[in-house]
């Protein structure tokens, strides 16, 4: 390990010396040009100061003249008149018939050359293909053995490549550890490639232009910039230079894709805001009901944090001179010591503070040296007069919701969230972006104990959690199976001793849940449920909801623009390879060089395609929103399911799978053990084996007759 560090250190030193020598032997002009740019800057500073504090000098500074160091570019004339003449000439040639014919003849010539090449290469490829087909026609069962060419390839090319990769990765991580080396190299190359001169010239010209407004000098600056960029284009070969526009193109389209995804998320938030506190999402199996409520739950959690922050900002401005940071720190201490753990205890804490202040009137002890005499204890918002302690109560509750480092989701299935709080000991900032590249720490939703939502009888007697739920996002999948409807609960009586759906007062909680969750007139509570049919949930509760019917889930789409051709190549390569590969797998058990290389290339293309689809893919759900009273009036809407947000291990669609797994484990029977029909027609014994009501009924009647 130490040896390697010494080696990397020596390599860094050698590279630094090389770069310095390059500056001396290859880029000496850049340094002369930098000196000239420095002189231009000094001249412009003088010109600027003279213009601002005295008279504008008659003589123009040297910045408006061409450099003596840089070479002129043939294609760009030195003056604007020459440029205009050249441009006119170019356009004249561009639209001339002769030029078009000459170009067509050139295209024809090049195409003929290419055709000749293809004509030579094509039979070779065909021969090679036939040869490979003949070689691979023979079957074998040499399981996982490498052929000789593959063995040689693995030991030479792959080993060499892996060693080189390991070396480069190690060196890059070494350089990352020594950030100063990177910075020094970047600065050095900035000087070598004339970028430093460009920056100095920019400031020089800015100072000149700010006081002179000489527009006619702009052309000279553009030409000077082009000339100054020459070392950059001359030093690097075209195949390296082409990486620059490719990188810029990548950034450009990624930016568009992220903007689209954020726009779709904003539209989803708008849709969720329109929903009442309780909603039920319906659709047949596989229509993405649970996916949709999970998506809405995640967005709602983020919106609650954002709303809490908004309340904090507004309350802060109501009393701009109050030392909020001290108040926050005391609240955090109370949280740490357990004196404050929910909104009710926050209110109690503020009430105590108010009582103490009214008793002792001590600004130092209760208000952190806030000068109440000077800045006041009241704020008039033209609707009512609010006291400082009202503001403190609002602020403390909003801060409690904002700062709580646990998921705000309570659900009957697990939902993963990865919002991250960033703090430097002052005000914490939540990172709430679903589409960021950072891998964040995971949290999971809280287990929903239904007793906390029951105002009446509880399943567990003296449940310590009962009555504790105040605010948050509640997600309940398959609500109908939990609560039942009027028909199913016909036999269930309210007076029963056992807790049931009629005496647990869950519906009363639904109707009143916002009372415990309201901070600054905003309810920090939302209940998302799903079921296959809205009628599966009793009308008393369902009437409170908006029903979101999923009509259809559209095809997968991509927010990344200009990806059609890459997708086409990936798909083509994948399908071609898979058919070839399966044929090969059928015939042979060993590994060959040809298939190995094809597989590596296809796997790279396929993985890249999958990553892009996962990163920028989305689906549009067509939905119809109607009132819980089911009056038949539906409003068509759209909901966007973005892969990056909802499919990154957020939840499992088989959330109750463990129940079935537990049952299946105990049976000792599998699909293979089920008896098969002997012929196309079922025998009487086979029919009786079905344990069917229908068949049993038929035979029961027959036998009794």
């Amino acid at each position, binding site marked *: 390990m130490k040896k390697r560090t010494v080696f990397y250190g020596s390599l860094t030193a050698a590279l630094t010396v090389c770069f310095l020598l390059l500056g001396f032997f290859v880029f000496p002009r850049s340094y002369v040009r930098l000196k000239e740019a420095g002189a231009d800057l000094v001249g412009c500073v003088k010109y600027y100061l003279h213009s601002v504090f005295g008279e504008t000098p008659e003589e123009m500074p040297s910045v408006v003249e061409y450099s003596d160091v840089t070479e002129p570019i*043939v*294609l760009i004339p030195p003056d604007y008149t020459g440029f205009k003449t*050249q441009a006119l*000439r*170019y356009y004249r*040639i*561009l639209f001339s018939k002769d*030029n*078009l014919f*000459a*170009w067509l003849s*050139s*295209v024809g010539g090049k195409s003929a050359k290419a055709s000749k090449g293809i004509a030579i290469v094509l039979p070779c490829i065909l021969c090679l293909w036939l040869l490979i087909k003949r070689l691979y026609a023979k079957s074998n069962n040499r399981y996982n053995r490498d052929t000789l060419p593959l063995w040689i390839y693995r030991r030479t090319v792959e080993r060499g490549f892996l060693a080189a990769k390991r070396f480069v990765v190690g060196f890059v991580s070494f350089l990352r550890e020594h950030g100063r080396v990177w910075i020094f190299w970047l600065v050095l190359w900035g000087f070598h490639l004339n970028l430093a001169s460009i920056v100095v010239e920019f400031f020089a010209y800015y100072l000149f232009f700010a006081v002179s407004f000489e527009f006619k000098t702009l052309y000279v600056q553009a030409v000077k910039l082009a000339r100054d960029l020459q070392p950059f284009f001359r030093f690097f070969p075209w195949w390296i230079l082409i990486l620059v526009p490719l990188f810029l193109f990548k950034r450009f389209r990624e930016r568009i894709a992220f903007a689209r995804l954020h726009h779709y998320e904003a539209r989803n938030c708008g849709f969720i805001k329109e929903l009442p506190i309780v909603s039920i999402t319906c659709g047949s199996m596989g229509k993405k009901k649970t996916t949709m409520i999970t998506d809405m739950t995640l967005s709602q959690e983020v919106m609650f944090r954002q709303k809490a922050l908004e309340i904090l900002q507004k309350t802060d401005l109501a009393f701009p001179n109050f030392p909020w940071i001290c108040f926050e720190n005391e609240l955090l201490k109370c949280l740490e010591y357990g004196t404050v753990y929910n909104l009710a205890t926050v209110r109690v804490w503020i009430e105590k503070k108010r009582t103490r202040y009214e008793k002792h009137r001590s600004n130092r002890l209760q208000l952190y040296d806030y000068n109440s005499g000077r800045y006041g204890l009241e704020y008039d918002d033209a609707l009512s007069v609010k006291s400082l302690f009202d503001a403190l109560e609002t602020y403390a509750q909003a801060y409690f919701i904002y700062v709580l480092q646990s998921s705000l989701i309570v659900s009957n299935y697990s939902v993963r969230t990865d919002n991250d709080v960033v703090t430097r000991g002052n005000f914490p900032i939540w990172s709430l972006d679903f589409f960021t590249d950072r891998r964040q720490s995971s949290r999971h939703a809280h287990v929903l104990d239904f007793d906390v939502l029951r105002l009446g009888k509880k399943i567990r007697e003296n449940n310590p959690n009962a009555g504790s739920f105040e605010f948050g996002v509640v997600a309940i999948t398959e609500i109908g199976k939990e609560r039942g409807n009027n028909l199913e609960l016909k036999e269930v009586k309210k007076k029963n001793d056992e807790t049931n759906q009629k005496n647990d007062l869950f519906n009363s909680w639904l109707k009143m849940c916002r009372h415990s969750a309201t901070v600054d007139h905003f309810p920090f509570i939302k209940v998302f449920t799903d079921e296959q049919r809205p009628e599966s949930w009793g009308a008393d509760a369902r009437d409170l909801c908006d029903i979101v019917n999923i009509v259809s889930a559209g095809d997968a789409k991509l927010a990344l623009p*200009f990806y*059609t*051709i890459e997708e*086409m190549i990936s798909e083509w390569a994948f399908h071609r390879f898979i058919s070839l590969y399966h044929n090969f797998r059928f015939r042979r058990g060993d590994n060959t060089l040809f298939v190995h290389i094809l597989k590596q290339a296809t796997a790279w293309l396929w993985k890249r395609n999958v990553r892009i689809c996962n990163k920028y893919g989305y689906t549009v759900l067509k939905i119809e929103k109607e009132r819980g009273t089911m009056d038949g009036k539906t409003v068509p809407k759209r909901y966007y399911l973005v892969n990056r947000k909802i499919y990154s291990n957020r939840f499992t669609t088989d959330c109750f799978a463990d129940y079935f797994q537990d049952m299946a484990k105990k049976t000792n029977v599998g699909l293979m053990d089920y008896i098969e029909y002997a012929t196309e027609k079922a025998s009487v014994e086979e029919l009786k084996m079905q344990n069917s009501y229908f068949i049993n009924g038929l035979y029961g009647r027959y036998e009794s007759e």
Partner: protein
Amino acid sequence: MKTLKRILAVTVILVIAMVIWYLVFTGQVMNAEEAYEEANSLLR
């Protein structure tokens, strides 16, 4: 629809490539013309 989109994308790329090729070719012709004129003026 997908096939149509792909055909359109390939066509657009080909057209852009041809246009760029034509623009560069025109620039080369202009340079050649200029060099020819310069040589002629020197001969005169």
